């Protein structure tokens, strides 16, 4: 704790003696991953002066970790693919909790965003005709992911990085200064957003990690693109940057977070050795033929196909294996179910005692593809296992288990503009919410950040144009002083609690008590602990000076991690159903009533905690609903919701008075602009009490004999009587059924 005498010259500065660097921009983008860079590029294209704030070096953002690919219905491999199919897959994957308009825009615009990357130098893998090749992935009906081996995220970040450089070169040519209109502030952390007296965004304040000096950005528009929250968990595939900064900063500035209970546990993270536990093993392993086996050598995923997906997935190993060569006449292998299903299944196998010695299951590609082919298609995985675990994946199976990977919940935005309720504040990528519903499909993240990064940049630029002569919002000096004071507190308290210790306790708490399977008593316990952590957080200390001091940085990040953890836990306790990335031990079924509800987190009156409220989910446009078979919708929707479909839905609608159905929806659908609708929603009486009514358990369809009813189900499913909805819920429960008896799982393996 004490060997830092050489840093004494960096002694704590005080706000009175310290000049604070100031910069003025049109748009400040916080985050330099895919969404942030794409937003910055678009705002710069629109003629704005843009600053990009990057917590680490330029080009190191977490986007580089994305392996599998970017989903876009280009139809290069299977011409039957189109945006409607992609939209359907996305909604199914998210269990229909997605903001339909975002899913629609995403599916429609993704191909253009990918093609555009090629004009900036991206080199995707090719088809025989020389087009961009597309690979299979979980939940995607057709081969859809544009990819470069298993390092697609790196290609994406490098391409965007190089596009930024290209724009800087243009500016250099015209102005003599590379950074005239687009500047990257590397290794800079934002601690607070700033607003003017009327509540509009006015800028942000942060510090340079390298020197510890503060910097104020004055800007009428700020785009949050900070990624996820995984560092609040012990076992995670996320980097140190993922401390929920964007979520927390936006919340503190008055924005709302939507559906924070939905956290994606990627089914396949490394489980051994302990120090690499959680590092991602790409889904492409399964997309390219890899299979999951338990310790008995059984391909167990066939036992876990929930009813809502049964139509699309193979029932026998033979059919599944044929699918790789003939997708027209066979159904997909169940290893390619959406991630939430696979993660829960692995969890159940391990809990049932059929796991590997290190507490995972086997993922085997060695018996499925020739060694040469594995090295070509999965080079990073080959190296990762070879170098970190001494495992040769061309000869041995991998050991894998679930790892905290992605948060579906995030800053509530308008689906078209990415704007929040705070004028001038935008959000895109993982830190924004709505697009992925309760569960994100693999490959939809890279396309999400391109589509909505661009939209955020575009609309932030338009917002600035619209400010007109009213002028730029002004930063209040007192707000800057308050932010500085807050940030300097840990340094002034060098003997305070070790921030690393508190961080570790937080991670263990979230991992063990708010993990894959949630029990209300455990989540409550987590909330109690979080309350205890809050005062401790204000007393942590950072020894040493301000120059590149990781202890200080952790101390500051803790505030954000505690805020997002509280949001996740509160929402997890509230939502009494199981759906996607939220599995409740005591409510294992999916509920059509709960599908109608978004859970909204906002800062409470005195800023000491989180308020949670129910908000009705936007009504899906009938033309989009029409893309699905009624029999499928019945598994997710209440009968009255489906009356808008008219005749085709009659059998289910009959019992309900038509008047109860939601108004058939505004045809042009700018859909729920968050800015306006939210204000109304607040004053609206909430749907809450009704939502709590759990559908009565349906007899029959008991858990346990899944294997037996596999065949029967397919037939049963075709007959779409009223019980379909309930049956669906019951079925979904099956996968979790085994998990229930056990505990908050993976976390326990915390070393």
């Amino acid at each position, binding site marked *: 704790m004490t060997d830092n005498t050489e840093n004494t010259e960096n002694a704590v500065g005080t706000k009175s003696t310290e000049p604070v660097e100031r910069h003025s921009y049109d748009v400040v983008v916080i985050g330099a991953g895919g969404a942030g860079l794409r937003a910055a590029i678009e705002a710069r294209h629109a003629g704005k002066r843009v600053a990009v704030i990057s917590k680490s070096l330029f080009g190191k953002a977490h986007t580089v*970790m994305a392996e599998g690919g970017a989903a876009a219905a280009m139809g290069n491999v299977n011409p039957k693919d189109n945006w409607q199919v992609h939209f359907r897959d996305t909604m199914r994957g998210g269990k229909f909790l997605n903001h339909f308009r975002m899913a629609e825009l995403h599916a429609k615009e993704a191909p253009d965003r990918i093609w555009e990357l090629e004009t900036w130098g991206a080199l995707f893998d*090719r088809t025989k*005709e020389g087009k961009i090749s597309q690979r299979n992935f979980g939940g995607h009906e057709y081969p859809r992911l544009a990819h470069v081996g298993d390092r697609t995220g790196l290609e994406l970040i490098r391409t965007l990085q190089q596009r930024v450089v290209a724009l800087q070169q243009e500016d250099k040519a015209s102005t003599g200064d590379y950074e005239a209109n687009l500047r990257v502030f590397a290794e800079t952390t934002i601690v607070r957003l700033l607003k003017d007296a009327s509540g509009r965004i006015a800028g942000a304040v942060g510090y340079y990690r390298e020197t510890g000096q503060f910097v104020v950005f004055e800007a009428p528009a700020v785009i949050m693109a900070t990624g996820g929250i995984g560092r609040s968990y012990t076992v995670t595939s996320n980097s140190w940057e993922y401390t929920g900064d964007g979520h927390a900063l936006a919340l503190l500035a008055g924005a709302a977070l939507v559906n924070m209970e939905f956290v994606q546990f990627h089914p396949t993270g490394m489980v051994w050795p302990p*120090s690499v536990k959680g590092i991602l093993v790409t889904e492409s392993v399964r997309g390219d033929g890899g299979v999951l086996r338990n310790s008995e050598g059984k391909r167990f995923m066939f036992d876990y196909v929930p009813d809502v997906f049964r139509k699309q997935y193979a029932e026998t190993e033979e059919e599944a294996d044929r699918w790789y060569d003939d997708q027209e006449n066979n159904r997909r292998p169940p290893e390619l179910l959406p991630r939430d299903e696979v993660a829960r299944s692995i969890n159940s196998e391990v809990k049932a005692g059929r796991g590997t010695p290190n507490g995972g299951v086997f993922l085997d590609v060695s018996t499925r593809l020739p060694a040469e082919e594995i090295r070509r298609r999965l080079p990073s995985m080959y190296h*990762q296992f070879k170098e970190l675990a001494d495992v040769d994946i061309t000869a041995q199976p991998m050991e894998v288990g679930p790892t905290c990977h992605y948060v579906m919940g995030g800053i509530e935005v308008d689906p078209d503009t990415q704007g929040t309720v705070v004028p001038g504040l935008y959000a895109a990528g993982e830190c924004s919410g709505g697009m992925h519903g309760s569960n994100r499909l693999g490959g939809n993240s890279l396309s999400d950040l391109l589509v909505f990064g661009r939209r955020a940049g575009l609309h932030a630029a338009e917002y600035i144009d619209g400010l007109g002569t009213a002028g730029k919002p002004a930063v209040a000096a007192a707000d800057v002083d308050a932010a500085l004071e807050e940030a300097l507190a840990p340094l002034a308290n060098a003997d305070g609690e070790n*921030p690393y210790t508190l961080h570790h306790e937080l991670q263990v708490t979230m991992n063990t008590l708010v993990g894959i399977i949630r029990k209300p008593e455990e989540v409550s316990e987590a909330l109690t602990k979080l309350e205890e952590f809050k005062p401790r957080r204000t007393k942590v200390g950072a020894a040493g000076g301000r120059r590149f001091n990781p202890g200080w940085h952790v101390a500051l990040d803790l505030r954000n991690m505690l805020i997002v953890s509280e949001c996740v836990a509160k929402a997890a306790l509230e939502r009494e159903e199981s759906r996607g990335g939220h599995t409740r031990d005591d409510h294992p079924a999916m509920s059509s009533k709960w599908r109608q509800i978004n859970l909204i987190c906002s800062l409470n009156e005195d800023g000491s905690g989180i308020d949670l409220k129910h908000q009705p989910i936007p009504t899906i446009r009938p033309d989009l609903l029409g893309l699905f078979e009624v029999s499928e919708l019945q598994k997710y929707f209440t009968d009255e919701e489906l009356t808008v479909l008219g005749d085709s839905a009659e059998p289910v609608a009959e019992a309900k008075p038509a008047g109860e159905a939601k108004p058939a929806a505004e045809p042009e659908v700018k859909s729920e602009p968050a800015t306006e609708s939210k204000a109304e929603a607040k004053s609206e009486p909430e749907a809450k009490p009704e939502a709590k009514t759990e559908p009565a358990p349906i007899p029959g369809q008991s858990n346990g004999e899944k294997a037996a009813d596999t065949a029967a189900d397919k037939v049963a499913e075709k007959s779409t009587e009223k019980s379909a909805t309930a049956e669906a819920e019951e079925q979904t429960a099956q996968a979790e059924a085994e998990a229930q008896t056990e505990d908050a799982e993976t976390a326990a393996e915390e070393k």
Partner: protein
Amino acid sequence: MGYKGKFKVWRGDASGGDLKDFEVEINEGEVVLDIIHRLQATQAPDMACRWNCKAGKCGSCSAEINGKPRLMCMTRMSTFEQDETVTVTPLRTFPVIKDLVTDVGFNYAKAREVKSFTPPKDLLPGEYRMQQIDVERSQEFRKCIECYLCQNTCHAVRDHEENKDNFSGPRYLMRVAELDMHPLDTADRKNSAQEEHGLGFCNITKCCTEVCPEHIRITDNALIPMKERVVDRKYDPLVWLGNKIRRRTSSDA
């Protein structure tokens, strides 16, 4: 299975510093970065190091371990004897900021000097057609995670500060080669490779290839072929004659 290991870590800043001794717990399967993190959490909370992904994909945690340029996240403790002292120092070629963190701005400056991808003007998005075999050469170079170990190792700048102005280093010479080999790039990069980026400084000792954590064959597949392309241009008698007669500039051809 854990044991107490001995570490020496360089601590200091631009004004100076030295190696500090640490005794620290080491467990099975750990890598050097795990140990640095343990030191931060238990003994030296302000010890500076960069890291992001901890999986060899972002290229942030570059350092010199027992004198060898390595990624800390990919250097397993099992490669050392238990009684061996592991010494971790910052990259030598770049100015120290603090402890294991160096100022790598040199690399970003050089990156900006490479002319960007220049596609054919008449090709619209979605119309790009390239064969896999043709993109593979450049794809190998695009595996680069920008850890700068090659830049740090190359003796042309490691021991010669004065060359930094005129030499872009293996990473950015490889970037020039990557663009030159891109099937659809239209810019001429031969002259600039030699004249602006200092390809001639490279004397093919392959040190860059040796330290590359991505196992990119920088020298064999990027630098030597690029040298050949430059030579073809510079010393081809017909091109020479053409230049004499028509005073061609670097932008045509």
